């Protein structure tokens, strides 16, 4: 049993129980989600460990991780702020909102703030077009939607996140 399996044994058992035993490989995405939750990205070690648990090659795991945009293979900011700039949102001012967010944080899309807290990213439609501008925060263990955003609500949001992240850092 590898270290990843030991740490998450209950959850992994529950996940594996969802699929027919001969289709164990189905658990690859759920396990990648667990891995990502811990550090915000999937490390090469995670990939090897997951491959071992599921009896598939590391290449197969990496390949799945590489296909889906929510899995990251590199460390980003503590929080990934993902703003939808897809067509319906763009018709409602999402592109301007993105610009003001970037100005606020002093980064360009795709970049991470110097304190390492936030990475700002553009994403495609989040199924929240009627509440644009909208963003999701991909944090350590969750994805949370924030809808009907303005620069003011956004400022409050990042302050909260900073506080929370800071507290966690100190608690750790």
């Amino acid at each position: 049993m590898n270290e990843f399996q030991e740490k998450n044994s209950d959850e992994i058992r529950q996940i594996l129980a969802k699929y027919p035993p001969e289709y164990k490989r189905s658990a690859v995405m759920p396990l990648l989600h667990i891995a990502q939750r811990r550090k915000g990205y999937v490390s090469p070690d995670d990939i090897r460990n997951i491959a071992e648990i599921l009896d598939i090659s590391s290449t197969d795991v990496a390949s799945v991780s590489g296909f889906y945009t929510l899995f990251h293979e590199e460390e980003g900011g503590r929080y990934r702020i993902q703003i939808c700039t897809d067509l319906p949102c763009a018709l409602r001012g999402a592109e301007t909102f993105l610009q003001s967010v970037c100005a606020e944080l002093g980064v360009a899309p795709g970049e991470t703030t110097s304190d390492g807290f936030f990475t700002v990213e553009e994403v495609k439609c989040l199924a929240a077009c009627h509440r644009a501008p909208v963003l999701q925060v991909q944090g350590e263990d969750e994805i949370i939607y924030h809808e009907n955003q303005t620069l003011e609500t956004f400022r409050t949001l990042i302050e909260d996140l900073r506080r929370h992240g800071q507290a966690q850092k100190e608690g750790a």
Partner: protein
Amino acid sequence: MAVKMVNLTIDNHSVSVPAGTLLVDAAKKVGIDIPVFCYHPKLEPVGMCRLCMVEIGRPVVDRATNQPVLEADGSPKLAFGPKLETACTTPVTDGMVVMTDNDKAAAEHKDMLEFLLTSHPLDCPVCDKGGECPLQDLTMRFGPGKSRFLFDEKKRLAKQMPLGELIILDRERCIQCARCVRFQDEIVDDPVIGFSERGRSLEIITYSEPGFDSIFSGNTTDICPVGALTTIDFRFKARPWELNAAASICTHCPVGCNLTINVRREARSGGRDVVKRIMPRQNEKVNEIWICDKGRFAHHFTESDQRLTEPMMRKGHEFVPVSWEEALQAAASQLKKAGDRTLALAGGRLANEDLFNLRQLALGLGGEAGLYSIMGGGELLTQVGVGQGTNLGDLGPGSAILVIASDLHQEAPLWWLRVKQAAERGATLIVANARPTRLDKFAKSVIRYNYGEEVEAVASLVPEYKSEVSEAVRDGIQGILGAENVVVFFGSDGLSLQGTTALATACANLLVKTNHFGRTNNGLIGVWPNANTQGAFEIGYRSMPDLAGRLAEAQAVYIAGADPAGDDPALAEALRKTGFIIVQELFMTQTARMADLILPVQAFTEREGSFVSGERRVQRYYPAVKGLPDLRPDYQIVAQIGELLNIPLEGRVASLVFLRLAEALPDFNGLTYQHLAEVEEQWPIYGREDLYYGGTGYHNHQGMGVQLKPAAQRVEPLYLPDAPEHPALTVPEGSLLVVPITRLYDRGTTMLPTSLLHERMEKPVIYIHPNLATAAGMQDGQSFQLVLNGISTLVQVIFDENAPVNAALLPRSVGVPIQGPALAQKEIVSA
């Protein structure tokens, strides 16, 4: 069972093909080329490149009457779909009318090529595939003349991405057809390369250690339809149109893969031809269109600067070059002196012609000829070897295959592949071994025994054998009982010469008792250590259980293609007692160092000859390069010595030696080199002008060889010995049982000169189960002096959960002498 035939029309040709045939193949059969990229006749169709789209009309059937609706002129009314369809995924149906080349289809082909070229770097002038590139060829034929895509908007990607030390990826050139990925997954079960990202960003990745960890990786460079995957060995070494080609046979294992050797004349080598690469040559009965990486890459020994280049004679402690005349004279006079105390010892990598002449010479002197081999029992195959016409590719439902004491994946990769595929087609696979191997996964039953119990394991499969049997054995018995055809492979995993001989006999008896011999697709196959071990047995050589004694007694020993002193210090010791030693070799082996006379020989690339594979297929190889002017083939040297001794031997050309051999040996009667050169039509069509279809390997027009009939098939009486007593292995308290295993990438004479494979070569290690290791006080990774039969060697410990709990595994030919199961001191002293 009669195959249902389907009639259809393709581009106005009437075609009749078996039901289930894909349109693309049906067209190919009548010489119509539908362009493809992702389709490959050996892979499952995926229909993803969309290049092969054609227009298809199907007869309209009246729902009420179930009769075809007719046009006014009486011809069947056709319905055409709104869209073109992929020919590579559409099976033929009756009455189909297919247009592969009308305006609609032609526009489609052009459009898809244009799409592919938008991402392609078009660096043909510096691309290794240039000249044999499907993308290039199809673009010339179907594609647009000019790009409408802005060059600046092309994706710039890594051009030199090594996927390990053997294969290099050019990301820009990849057209995402996934042939390589699918080959690795479907055909060889090594899914070690895959796609990452998506859309236009899709790119090949590998996460294995080492990168692209597969012994079949080179094949992907043949089927890659662009220059995205190339071998590091061939990259930038030559342009395909500069190459000449010669047919050959792989010398590394008993499968006998058909090869083509590509050569080029080079100024650097004084205007001589040089081997540039080894490619597969199609033989659907042997290797299909594949070869393993050892066959592809481990040819560098033939052009090593360590090769022996001139005859040499011992003067004191030194060797001095001598003329051939002097050398041959010396050999003749020493052999004459020795007379009936002459021992000729030959290795299984010599050609039939060499073996034949050498044996004739020894017998002519009244002496003896023996085979130097770690395995015995080959004489049994002359009686119950697989029947003529056997083709592993035909085995499927109704056939059973037993593989015992062999790690086929490592010992004979292409057999592993073909046995795996037979099992996937529905053949009952029974794998019996003391440890898990990569074939287990495909087996119906896996029988696990302890090292030393091989003969019992076979005996337990004879249906009448009475005793409590395990479920696996019961399944095995059922599998054999229920099968129309049975093929048995036996190997040398953990065995000594005596052990393999006993095992071979037990297997032969199993086949005879269950009446699975003397017929096509039935019989015994030896997983021999060398390409022509079987040939030696055919010619009358037998392995020598008491070799050390024989060597010590002989007054003259004539050793060809074997290195007993290098393998076993006891044999080196014995050789010290021998009178005169003649060594005929490629390299200065340990044995050669002990010689009185060294006769250098030509490598297989430099001469003609023939081998007999483990399936008893006699196959010939052709000279590819000239080689050094002063080297001669083994058979010729022997014949020249024979001439001096008044023993008449044929030495002019290999084909004439073969004629003599065929006269002398009943199994070969009537065979000639012409027969070996015969070919028959093979499917899929491969390696001709249309490289986009099958790949860049070679079409076979130089011979598929001839499979010998075993005695049983000629309805001759059998003389089978009973299985000899095979002493059980007892491991005294305080001892550690160490057994030999075979690895593909060993450190043998013909492997070492290929530096490309060094990283993958086996090192002096023992694989040991952690429990056994802990009991012996060993730690993972630790090095220690292993003492076997009084000889101490430094080895490294590798923990292996798959190793048995009662024996440590020691790879052969890595510098640690081991001839069979051996005992070591259990408590070790760390080095």
